[in-house]
């Protein structure tokens, strides 16, 4: 029967208007933009709801919307930062937008990294290529309340030196005494003055051999990197329940209606994008 249906007061597909206040290029074709809310009510709602790990739909009217994570941490919610690779219609339009231009944002949607549960634990962040942005949101959310966590280790790799994103922040992390940073590039991707490791992320991780004791691992990268890194983590003795990752699938609505982001029965937009490796291993691999 239809009696008990409540009517929504708002159009759930209406985005917030954002102004680009800063932007810079991270790597060839990869750009970071800092966005500020134009409507204080939208901003208040964002501040109330945003937690690290959530995603949003970034858009340009006339072109459409694209889904990426919120790359800025929950501890810095005066603005939103997003990092994207220019490759399609929407990301090209976003890349063409200049400082002062207006774009749209819908979100934040999805679940989050439960960082309160990480208090008192050692943290191991593993990331590959353009998958550093979601990890970076968690990293800064933790580093901004550094005293609450144990040892922090970051393992980050990219194909080539040029492909490393957030280069200025990598330098900052490298200088910090309370962060262990392990950088690597794929064999052949090193430059003559490259001082860090050469090798694939899983190999480098095994060499660095972080202890699984009281440690939470957060891993994000291309599917192939995740696959082999999970094997390495297992070798190192990590329990799947202590390994977190974030999935990204094609989405249109972001709110569990448009029907395309599911992996098996799991709706990435509603039940994810953050999952433990144990949860991912229960999903049908052929649907990933």
């Amino acid at each position, binding site marked *: 029967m*239809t009696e008990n*249906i409540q*009517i929504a007061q708002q159009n759930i597909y209406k985005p917030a208007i954002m102004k680009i206040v800063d932007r810079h290029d991270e790597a060839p074709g990869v750009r970071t933009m800092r966005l500020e809310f134009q409507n204080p009510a939208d901003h208040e709602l964002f501040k109330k709801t945003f937690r690290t790990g959530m995603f949003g739909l970034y858009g340009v009217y006339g072109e*459409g919307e694209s889904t990426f994570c919120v790359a800025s941490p929950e501890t810095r919610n005066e603005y939103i930062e997003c990092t994207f690779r220019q*490759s399609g219609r929407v990301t090209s339009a976003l890349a063409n937008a200049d400082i002062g231009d207006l774009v749209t944002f819908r979100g934040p949607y999805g679940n989050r990294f439960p960082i309160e549960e990480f208090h008192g634990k050692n943290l191991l962040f593993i990331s590959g290529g353009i998958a550093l942005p979601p990890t970076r949101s968690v990293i800064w959310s933790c580093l901004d309340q550094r005293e609450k966590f144990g040892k922090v280790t970051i393992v980050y790799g990219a194909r080539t030196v040029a492909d490393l994103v957030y280069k200025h922040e990598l330098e900052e992390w490298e200088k910090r005494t309370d962060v262990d940073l392990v950088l690597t590039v794929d064999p052949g991707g090193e430059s003559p003055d490259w001082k860090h490791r050469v090798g694939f992320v899983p190999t480098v991780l095994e060499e660095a051999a972080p202890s699984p004791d009281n440690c939470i691992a957060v891993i994000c990268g291309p599917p192939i990197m995740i696959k082999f890194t999970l094997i390495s983590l297992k070798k190192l003795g990590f329990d799947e329940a202590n390994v977190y990752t974030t999935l990204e699938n094609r989405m249109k609505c972001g709110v569990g209606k448009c029907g395309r982001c599911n992996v098996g029965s799991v709706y990435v937009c509603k039940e994810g994008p953050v999952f433990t490796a144990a949860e991912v291993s229960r999903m049908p691999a052929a649907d990933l």
Partner: protein
Amino acid sequence: MTRILFSDKLDNCVAKWRSAGLAVIGPVQEEAISRYAAVEKGTDFDFGTVLPDRSLKELFFPQTEPMLRYTIKKNEIDTADFTPPQGKRIIFGARACDASGLEIDDPLFGWDYKDEFWFQRRNESVIVTIACTKADDFCMCTSLKLEPDSTKGADVLLRPIDKNKGWLVEELTDRGREAFALISEYLQESSEPALPTVVVPEKFNLDACVTWLKNPENFESKFWKEISMRCIGCASCTYLCPTCHCFDIQDEGDTYSGIRRKNWDSCSFALFTMHTSGHNPRSTQSARWRQRIMHKFNYFPGKFTVNSCSGCGRCSRQCPVDMGITETLQAISNL
């Protein structure tokens, strides 16, 4: 004693409802297809089909629907909401499977984020179903544990009496009673019996199918390739389905002004899940057909405790290569 609505009074009823501000919608025959559409007089109805070619879905979730309008001036963006058309309406002569389909999709459009485009129309519609006295080989509501006279999603259920003379009236909800109070002068007390509803034979064992689908080992069974070999990915099944709800969002316009629309989409299409990187989680037609069946009978009921299928059979009836849910579930039953 039950009240009867005689079909020769239908014209008066339509006039009465219309003068009370209700738009009247019913099954009609348009040039090549039958569908639910607006009627102005009693003779516009076509109750002769087993069920209309197109489902009731499009009256609640149109094939394409504007969601908002944008206007961009120098450093200013204006977003104006489109509200779904305001106006009460009565849908007279829906089939039970189509009415069930609406109720099946309510929790989907309502979980956490409420889609007002759907619910506004749901709240403004009175649904009058007519129990089926005939069926064809594709009808399969009973296989889905529904009946030709299911009351799911209906505000009033009508049961046909002999010789197309009219219908026995069973009011089910306040909304239905309100709408029929408007035409009470045309209802007559009578003891005439209703025609028996059609017997729709069960075509497959749903419980056995669901058990098979839930077994993770069967996700990569070669069955999926075999059963979907001839699927051409045209999405007719999706578009005609009373419960398929997947959609795309597209902008129509230019840099300065335009409309953002919600359009029907289908899991049959390769582009549906294609990532920007080129990776496609469901890159083959068999993976897409598996998704369609799994979604309807495993994932959707897992979330909303109801199958995303009301057994109308349109997916099989209209399939250009003679596939469909019936065939697949029959094959699973027989595995």
